[in-house]
């Protein structure tokens, strides 16, 4: 009985819905309105995207969260998340105490000790990893640069291949004498574009620059630039620099990662190489704005990273003040 009545109600409501949703002229007794012409759409309209604002807000929140995570530890009685600045016991767990930053000479000695204790090969390369503060005044930033440095104690066995662009035959002879791998003029453009000839460094005479412009996209960062010293008339000097020079570049906007030496060189030589590289890096920003290097790490191929201080290595500021 109950189910019959329920079904009757369902049928009735269904009929009502049908009558109301019929659209066109409705035949119910109540309404006798003139036939309405409702719009008949034969296409489907795309719904407007109202979700943009929410997505933007989420992105902004994520960026703000990433920026807020920099915790300044210097004024606290103990660093955030650790038990103390310095451990009290002789045997302690490293991760509960602040990270130790050594001096540069100490870290070189530590790396040598690690090599002996780990029975690792002695001629492995020593890498240095620097994080730079690329800000200049008033929202300006230092451009990521690529430079070549002449190391006092080179560790490379092979000489770099240098390609010289010059139309003048006299200059070409000078280049050949000084040890350029390939010398030529505009005729070298096609082989380079076809990838038949390639070199580590490219030197050019100022007159040829206009002709070599099609190679700019191919060579990108290696294209001769007067700032880098690859555009000169003094070819012998440029060749001297680039044949034995060590090139390094700034990756990911603020990191410099290069090999500076091998571990079997004496500590003084490694220290001298490190000093040369650091002075060269710091010359790319005026010294008045504060320390350029935020953090510096030294490591070898088989060891862990050793954080070290760059203040002891950079000699220029202190000496100029004293003078």
């Amino acid at each position, binding site marked *: 009985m109950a189910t019959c009545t329920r079904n009757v109600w369902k049928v009735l409501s269904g009929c009502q819905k049908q009558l109301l949703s019929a659209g066109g002229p409705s035949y119910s007794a109540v309404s006798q309105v003139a036939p309405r012409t409702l719009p008949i759409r034969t296409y489907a309209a795309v719904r407007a995207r109202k979700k943009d604002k929410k997505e933007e807000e989420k992105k902004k929140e994520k960026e703000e969260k990433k920026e807020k995570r920099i915790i300044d530890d210097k004024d606290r009685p103990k660093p955030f998340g650790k038990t103390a600045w310095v*451990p009290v*016991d002789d*045997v302690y*767990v490293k991760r509960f105490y602040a990270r130790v930053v050594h001096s540069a000479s100490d870290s070189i000695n530590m790396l040598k000790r690690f090599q002996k204790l780990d*029975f690792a090969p002695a001629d492995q390369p020593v890498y240095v990893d620097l994080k730079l503060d690329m800000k200049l005044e008033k929202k300006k930033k230092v451009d990521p640069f690529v430079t070549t440095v002449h190391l006092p104690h080179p560790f490379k066995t092979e000489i770099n291949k240098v390609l010289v662009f010059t139309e003048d035959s006299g200059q070409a002879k000078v280049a050949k004498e000084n040890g350029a791998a390939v010398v030529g003029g505009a005729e070298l453009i096609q082989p380079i574009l076809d990838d038949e000839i390639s070199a580590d460094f490219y030197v050019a005479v100022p007159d040829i620059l206009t002709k070599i412009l099609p190679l700019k996209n191919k060579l990108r960062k290696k294209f001769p630039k007067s700032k880098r010293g690859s555009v000169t008339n003094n070819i012998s000097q440029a060749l001297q620099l680039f044949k034995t020079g060590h090139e390094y570049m700034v990756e990911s906007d603020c990191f410099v990662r290069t090999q500076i030496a091998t571990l079997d060189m004496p500590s003084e030589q490694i220290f001298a190489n490190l000093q040369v590289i650091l002075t060269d890096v710091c010359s790319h920003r005026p010294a008045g704005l504060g320390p350029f290097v935020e953090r510096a790490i030294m490591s070898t191929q088989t060891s862990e990273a050793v954080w070290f201080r760059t203040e002891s290595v950079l000699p220029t500021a202190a000496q100029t003040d004293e003078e």
Partner: protein
Amino acid sequence: MFSCGRFALQVLLRQPAVRSFSLTPAQHTVIVERWWQVPLSKEGSPPRLYPRRHRVYKLVEDTKHAPKEKMELILTQTVEKLGGRGDTVFVKKSIGRNRLLAQGLAVYPSPENKQMFAEELRLLREGQPEQRLQTRTGQLTVELLKRSKLKIIKTLSDDFQLTKEVVCRQFEKKLGIVVPPHALSLPFEPIKELGEYWCDITVNGMDTVRIPISLLPYEDQSAVHKKQLRAQRKLLAAERDSQADAEEDDAILTAVSEAQEAEHV
């Protein structure tokens, strides 16, 4: 007659109705200043005050609106989330006075107290083992060492041998625990063959823990080799799964055929 200053003072010192029954009244200092200047009196005699004039005050600062500063205390016992004996901590004044000082868990950092704890620290480093007290961090390190084991992988070089220095370096690399050579005792020096050994570590010269060391054969630790091993293991696992499926299918088939035979019979 109420002057505005006095009225303000009375209002401030009145207990607000919001505070609950069990809490003590807010006892913060209110700094006030006299409205009228007190005239200079003769040398040697006290200033003459007239209450009608000189008891009129104006508010300078109510310290309960100033930010609450933390107080410095030195703990005498291990307190959770704060530290162990001898640690200098900064806590809220309410917690410091009502809990730490009241229950004797901490003392004020007066010069005498600071000297006492500095003396204790000095004894820990230089004194006799009987005079020393184990620190909270030392106790936790002992607990950690009791649960740990050192696994050293032998390298391919000919002159590989385990000495105290090598074992200390391996502790630092593998377990992250810094052990000075004087705290480690290695009875089987020098170790050259594979196998199981042990060593003793003494924390702060007081508690000694025996830690098992196992010297394992050479394994390539590079990422490329590990990827290859992982791929091999996946293949083996896939083969085993397919074999297991095949066996299951065989078992089902045999069961079905037996049932059919039973029906026929």
